């Protein structure tokens, strides 16, 4: 017996694709318009993500969006990046929801609600970073970037050491 795709799965797929497109097109009102080729690539990547959420192509599509923003912007941090961050978080959450089970399994409303709240909360990091970046936009130097990177790597190493168990555990 062949089972159809659950309606909730279709909705989450559509939301995920929309999230990726919003991540790319959020700068259009401020004049950051991507070329048609980039839009097509991200759209295709969105379709792939919707049907194969755990595929490497999903990460690569997000990578394309990041690269496009990195190429468009230099030191400026427009408000559109907040919307783009929301789009990327939405796409990531949608991918997570889709990977819980087979496509014929309806995604329960409670699980969708839980992840919607989580997505909203983690998105709040974006305005904080955006605010800090705006404040320090004119004061940052290459040295400060490298220092920030070193600090981030250090924090990451500590977290990894705490979280990942050693062989003796």
């Amino acid at each position, binding site marked *: 017996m062949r089972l159809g795709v659950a309606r909730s799965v279709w909705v989450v797929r559509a939301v995920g694709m929309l999230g990726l497109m919003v991540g790319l097109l959020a700068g259009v009102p401020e004049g950051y318009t991507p070329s048609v080729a980039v839009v097509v690539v991200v759209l295709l990547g969105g379709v792939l993500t919707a049907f194969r959420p755990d595929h490497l192509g999903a990460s690569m599509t997000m990578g394309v969006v*990041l690269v496009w923003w990195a190429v468009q912007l230099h030191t400026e941090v427009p408000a559109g990046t*907040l919307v783009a961050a929301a789009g990327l978080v939405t796409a990531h959450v949608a991918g997570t929801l889709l990977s819980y089970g*087979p496509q014929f399994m309806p995604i329960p409303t409670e699980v969708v609600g839980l992840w919607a709240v989580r997505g909203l909360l983690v998105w709040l990091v974006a305005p904080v970073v955006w605010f800090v970046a705006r404040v320090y936009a004119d004061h940052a130097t290459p040295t400060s970037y490298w220092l920030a990177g070193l600090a981030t790597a250090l924090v990451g190493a500590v977290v990894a050491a705490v979280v990942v168990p050693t062989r003796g555990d």
Partner: protein
Amino acid sequence: MSEGPSRWHTTGSLARGLAVGGFGVAVALTLGRPAVVVLVGPLLVVASLALLGKPSREPRVLPRLAHLQLYEGQGTRSWLEMSGTEDAEHVTRVLGQQPFIALHPVGGAVLSPPDDLRPIEISPRRWGERRVGTEKVAMTSAWAGYRWGPVQLPGREMFVLPAVTRMRSGGEAPQPIGLIGAHRSRREGGGTEFSSIRAFHSGDRLRRINWRVSLRQGTLHVESTRAEEDTAVLLIVDAMADYGVSEGIDAADSSLDVTVRAAAAIADQYLGGGDRVSLRVLSPAGEYAGYGTGTRHLRRILGLLARVRPGVPRDVSIEQIDFRATAGTVVVVISPMLSAELAIATVRLVRRGLPVIVVDPLPPGSTPPVHPDPAAQVAQLAWRMRLLDRSHLLSQLGAAGCPVVPWNGPRTLEEVLRRLARRSQLPRIGV
């Protein structure tokens, strides 16, 4: 269930969050793009929280099924007994799809927290042996960072008995020859149904004296009654082929579905009335149950019917089968009569003086399973010729004194048995 190496693995979600977040930070630092950190900041937070929720305990999961024997159309529940699920945030269960097994929720897939995992309802839609409960179980840790499984859990064999429509028939056995039962006998004895008024014999009970007739006649007269006896019923089930499409109970029936359900209903009907019932299945396994009574015997018959697989009997031809039908036994042959050998065997039983009824289980418009190849038209033509042969065979059976009735529920035999009983009570001329 969960011995050996850990089955917790990182999810695609965690990998994506780390990869995109790490790539974004690297781009931001190397090219000096603070805006990219804004974009990937939330993803890094999600990935970090998922990493912090790394599980350390291995769950144990055992599948459970409430019932292993059901009647078709009934339902049972499948649930999981779990332990060590403290690190799991969500459990995903997906039951394997099996023919003639209905699942609720549809698809047999559920996703919920481990402490609120709902059982999956299972309902077999057709008799027979069915494997149910084969499923895959997966768990995800907090923030969907790690996944346990999916682990394949084995299913269990479920025995699905044919559905029995409970209805007590008013049909009487034509020639009951037994001890105590519910059928009106041809001989007189201690019963409730009036037979005649006759002269008093020694041994008659005083309370049976009919005083009005005795006064009028001047000698004592008593009311006599008919004895009530049980009867023996032999069910011959033709399982040599299955015609038509079976879609389970409350949907389209194949000929074998009708055969098995009719046999179950007739056995239930007569055993419920205290009669002796025997079953003979014409199939490769040749299922057989001798004469017996009671609920236990009914369950045995239903169990044998549930095991029936269509096919031609092995190692024995129908002509050689001893049906063990003694005098007075009601023989019910449930067959589409597409076998000339079975028709001949049926006529032999009729000629022995036994009351024989043929129940036709062939649903209208049913066809045999034909491989979809260019010869399908030829097969259709051949089937039409078989149907013509069959109608000829059925009319010959009717002419030989064997009524043929299509199965129409438990009351199918009532009218036919009444007619046979009337016929058996008619005076006969010996030649």
